[in-house]
Structures are given as structure tokens and as C-alpha cells.
């Protein structure tokens, strides 16, 4: 299982790449702007120069940002393919959204509501649909989000590398209880998971 690249890493790399460039641009633009306003204030610079453009400069600032933007597109797309390509041997859980709760069905027909328990270091694939209006399943810790749409099957997968509890929330507005439509993913050791999943439902 160690050869699987966690898409969280790819998504974060793409994010830092884009936001890093953005900070550089923002600081450069802002500092130059403030410098010009101070340096060329009317009390210091009575007569303005008549400069109407500069073909070379304008070409540079069209071509260069185009390449940078395209590289950003590529990094974003690559991280997305990581989110889409589910590794083999993933644990598949069927998810049904309804106003205002989440239902989960395990392969052995165990059912849970607003809570999933998954074994650590095992890829998990969620097959998602909705029983009524559109909802969206969002797990911030795993950088995944996909809409739950009635009549359509969508999916997302994640690789839990650490034991612990992670929140998931609904991110498509669905009515009064929208903000309460959340739950917890519990990542546990493989042994604990086996014990949990094979226990008969108490309800």
C-alpha cells in the first residue's frame, strides 16, 4: 500500500505552487504601485512624461503570465487525476444523502448514519447518490468533495494514513438543516475495524 500517492499531497502542492506565485505577484504589483504614487506625486513631479505604451513590455507581460497560468492549470489537473484514480483493493462504501443526514452501507450490508469507521492505510471509495435534493459530501482533511445527486452515481476516494476522527460536512445548500448535516470519519486500526464491521447492529 505504500506505493499509493496520497492525493492530499498533490492537491496541497498545487495549492502552494499557485498561492506562492500569487503572493509574489501581489507584493510586486502593490509595492510598485505604492512606490510610483509616492515617487511621482504632483508636488515632486510637476510635468508628467507622455508614455502611451511599450510593445516589448506589453508582449512580455502577456506571454510570461500565459506560461505561468498554463503551468498552474497543469498542476491543478494533475492533482485532480490523483483524486479520480482509485487504487485497486479499495474498501467501497455506498453513501446515500438525504435531508438532513448521511447513510452509509458497507459491503457486508452493515449500515451507519452520519458516521463511518474505516481501517487505517486502506484506500476507501465512496459511491455517492442522493435520495432527494442535491447534497455534497466534503471531507476537508482528505481534500475531497463531490455532489450527491438523485439519479446519478458519483464517487470520491481517500487514503486515511493516520488514526483519528475527521469531520465531513454537506456543502451544497439543501435547506434548514444544511449546516447540521455533518458527521465523523473514524480511522481505526485494522483489527479494531474488523471487530467493528463484523459486530451485529445494535439497532
Amino acid at each position, binding site marked *: 500500500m505504500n506505493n499509493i500517492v496520497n492525493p492530499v499531497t498533490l492537491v496541497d502542492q498545487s495549492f502552494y505552487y499557485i498561492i506562492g506565485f*500569487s503572493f509574489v505577484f*501581489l507584493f510586486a504589483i502593490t509595492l510598485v*504601485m505604492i512606490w510610483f504614487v509616492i515617487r511621482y506625486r504632483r508636488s515632486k513631479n510637476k510635468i508628467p512624461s507622455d508614455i502611451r505604451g511599450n510593445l516589448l513590455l506589453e508582449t512580455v507581460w502577456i506571454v510570461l503570465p500565459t506560461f505561468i497560468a498554463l503551468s498552474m492549470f497543469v498542476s491543478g489537473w494533475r492533482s485532480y487525476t490523483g483524486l479520480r484514480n482509485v487504487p485497486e483493493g479499495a474498501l467501497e462504501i455506498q453513501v446515500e444523502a438525504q435531508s438532513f443526514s448521511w447513510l452509509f452501507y458497507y459491503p457486508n450490508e452493515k449500515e451507519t448514519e452520519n458516521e463511518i469507521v474505516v481501517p487505517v492505510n486502506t484506500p476507501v471509495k465512496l459511491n455517492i447518490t442522493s435520495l432527494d435534493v442535491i447534497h455534497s459530501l466534503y471531507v476537508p482533511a482528505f*481534500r475531497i468533495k463531490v455532489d450527491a445527486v438523485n439519479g446519478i452515481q458519483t464517487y470520491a476516494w481517500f487514503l486515511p494514513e493516520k488514526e483519528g476522527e475527521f469531520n465531513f460536512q454537506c*456543502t*451544497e445548500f439543501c435547506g434548514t438543516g444544511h*449546516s447540521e448535516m455533518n458527521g465523523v470519519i473514524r480511522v481505526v486500526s485494522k483489527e479494531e475495524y474488523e471487530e467493528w464491521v463484523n459486530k451485529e447492529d445494535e439497532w
Partner: protein
Amino acid sequence: MKIQYKGIRSWLLTMDHKRIAILYLFSILFWFLLAVLIGGLLRFELMFRGQTILSAELYNSAFTLHGVIMIFLFIIPGIPAIFGNFFLPIQIGTDDVYFPRLNLLSWYLYMAGGGIAIVSLFSSGFPDTGWTFYVPFSISTKTNVSTAVFAAFVLGMASMLTGLNFITTIHRMRHKDMGWMQIPLFTWSLYATSWVQLLATPVISITLLLVIIERYFNVGLFDPAKGGDPILYQHLFWMYSHPAVYIMILPGMGVISEIIPVFARKSIFGYKAIVASSMAIAIAGSLVWAHHMYTSGMSDTAIFVFSLLTFVVAIPSAIKVFSWVSTLYKGSIQMTPPLFLALCFIYLFSVGGLTGLVLGAVGPDIHVHDTHFVVSHFHFTMFGGTGFAFFAALHYWWPKMFGRMYDFKKAYIGAILLTGGFMFHYVPMFILGLQGLPRRYFDYLPQYETGNFYAGFGAAFMIVGIFLMVINLLSSLKKEKDASSDPWGGTTLEWQTPSPPPLHNFITEPEILAYPYDFSGVVERYSKDDKGE
């Protein structure tokens, strides 16, 4: 020919583009300030966990109202209907728009749309769908969605007719000496905007009618059980609503392209590139709508194409920012409230544009889509961008429109409160979004408390700043008329008419410059003034 009315009828039956612009100004200001206060309520509710001042139902209605009013009654009509109506004919040296009667009809449609929106509130429950009216929720919810979408439909008509009017006016009524490359950049930006208004608005009009049809007749266009597709609605909705964000921002960019040269007393840098980028934004911006739908379940091929096109549309916006900053180079810069607001625009809009790159990139967008990050991003572009351009335009053209100068000190204080509050409000929202707080949340998990608490203070500062600026402008109306015809030293034609301009705009035939941003005459005039000649 034209009948002259007196009193209130001289306003309600006017066909003078300037009077219609002022009618728009006060009606739009009313809606804007109302939506600002509703937005404040949302923020204050979110300052603490659990219910404080609004219930969940009221909160959901409040963000719907805030969105619908801000989008359809303020940002889309704001700059074109007020400043476009007032200055487009003057900037091209003519006496009115091509269809003055239609212009007045647009205003009445706008007022009717606003009226219908009010009716929707007080009959069978406040609409609670968000301004996006996503199906199937908008079809199944019991609140009065039909009336609310009908209001948006009527407002769309007003917007389309204004667009049609402007295109025709620019083509047919330009001063005979004014070629296409002599048109001021504000008018150019309205030209690009008007095409989008005219071509994209019918899509939303039809879509909104389909929602009404679904609610009453349940045909099943968007219902998979009947062979329909809920994602089809999202495509139709964004096919208008994404180009619409360019309807919102392009006129604002046009305003900035006027203000920066005037206060730098120097030609705009790269006139043709700015014209071309306006048109490029209008065209490319119409082809990127599905970048709102990466998580919707549409095909990965579509996602690839729409993400790529989204990055393409970033370039023309970047060109404009570079041109504005370069315009300041070796200028003779005079700080004034409109320039201050324009500089704030450049900064805030850059933040909005750059965070848009994060949202255009597919992988990172999956994480932050429909979170507070997105909300913050579009407030940086729509408020930090269009909103600040709107205020810059108000302060820039106010002396021309009303013949009175306002108090600079109060304007600066208002603008600083607004900008400072803005940062305090929206920067925490970026962080909240990255931490995973979804939008349209009445309540939230404990880890999101700090950011929401701080953002509330920012909102309070913003509201004070906005009201201070507006009150400062309005209180100037009590004074005697004191503004000269050209208080800033501008080159475009509106500065060749008296303040305020008379009925048919020009007393003497306007002089058309070979190049619209040639400041040599202005520089010469002012250097003579300095020598006391």
C-alpha cells in the same frame, strides 16, 4: 418635439439619459444599502456558535436576499445603469442614447423587478434557495421561489434593454469625428459588457421560466425520475451567471481606466491592449461557466476543458492590472478620494483575481469549492472590485453629475474604514475556507469560531465606512453649486460640459482629441495656471 414637464413628472416621465441615470442612482443606492445591512446581519449571526440574532430559516432567507439584491439589483445594473447612462452619450459627444423611451422603460422594469422581489418576501415565506436557485431544491421548497425568480426575470429584461440601447448608441450616435480608437475606455468597457448582457441574459431568462414551469406543472425537465437532469439546470444557470460576473466587473475596470490617467495626468498605458482585453474578457468569459461545477458530477473531459479556458481568461485581466500600474510611472500624481479608491481597487481586485487561480485549478478547487474561501474570493472581486469601482466612480463623477464637490476628509475616512474593515472581514474567511468551513452555514463546528468572530468586526467597520461615504456625498447636495466644469483635469468629453451638464449635454460643439488620453493640453493649461497667467 420633446415635451417639457415640471416637478415630479419631469423626473418620472423624463427621457433625458442623465435624469434616468439619477433615478437609477437613488433606487440602486437604496437596494445596495439594504443588502449591506442584511449582509451585516449574516455576519453578526455567525460571530458566535448557535443561534444568536437569526433563526436558521431567517438566516437562509437573509443570505438569499443579500445575494439576489446585490447581484440583480446592485452589481449588474450599478455602474452601467447609473454612470453608463449618464456618461456614455457624453463621452461619445452626443445628446442622448439612441432609444430614450426604451431607456425609461428599462428603469421602470428595474423598479418593477425590485417591487416583485419585495412581494415575494411577504407572500408564503421568504425564498431560501440562495441566489443560485439550484434545482431540485428550488422546485421542492415551499417558500415563494416563483415570485423571486420572476423578479430576476424582469430585472434581466431591464438589463438586456440597457445593453441593446448602449450598443446601438455607440454604433449610431458617436460624434462624427470620433473613430473606434478614439472612444474612451469606460465607454469601450460598456460596449463589451452590453454584448454580454444582450447575448447571455436570454439564457437565464429562459432558465428562470423553466423553474417556474417546473414548480407549477412538474414537467420533469430536471427530474431524473422523469428522464430529466438536475445538472442541466446548473449548466444553464452558469451559462449566464458566469458571463454575468464579467458584466459586473468590466464596467468597473472601465471606471479605473478613466480615473488612473486623470490623476496621474498621463496617458493610459497600452490603450489598445486594454480595449482588446475588454473584448477578450467578454468573449472568453462566456466560455468558462462550468468551472463552477467541478464537483457536480459532470465528465472529467468537461472539467479539463473548462479549467484550461478559465486560466486563459485570467490573462486579459492581468494585462489591465499591469497597464494601470504602468500608467502611474512618471506621472504627476494627485491623491484624491477617487484615486485612493481606485488604488484600493487594484489591490483588492488583484487578491480576488489571484485567489481565482486557486479556484480555476481543478484539484485545489475541489477542496475549497462551496466554502468560505469562495465567498471571500468573489467578495474580493465583486465588492473589492466592482463595489470599489462603483464608489470610485461616485467620487470621480459626483461633481460633474451634481455640480458640487464633497468633503475630502470624510471621504478618505470612509474609504479607509471600508478598506480596513474589508480586509478584516474577508481575510479570515479565506482561512476559514481552507480549514473547510462550507458556505451558507447557519452554524458551524467549534474549530471555525475564531475566524468568524473576527470577521464580524470587519463587517461593522465596513458598514460604518459605507454609510459615512454615502452621507458625505449626499450632504454636499445642500451646498451651493461649486464644482467647475473640469475639477480634476480630464481629457474625455464630459469635462468639456458644465457641471451638471445641461439638457442636451453640450453648449458648444465638443472638441474630439485624436487620441482620447492626450494630456498635453491639460498639462499646458495647468502650468499656465501655476504661473498665474
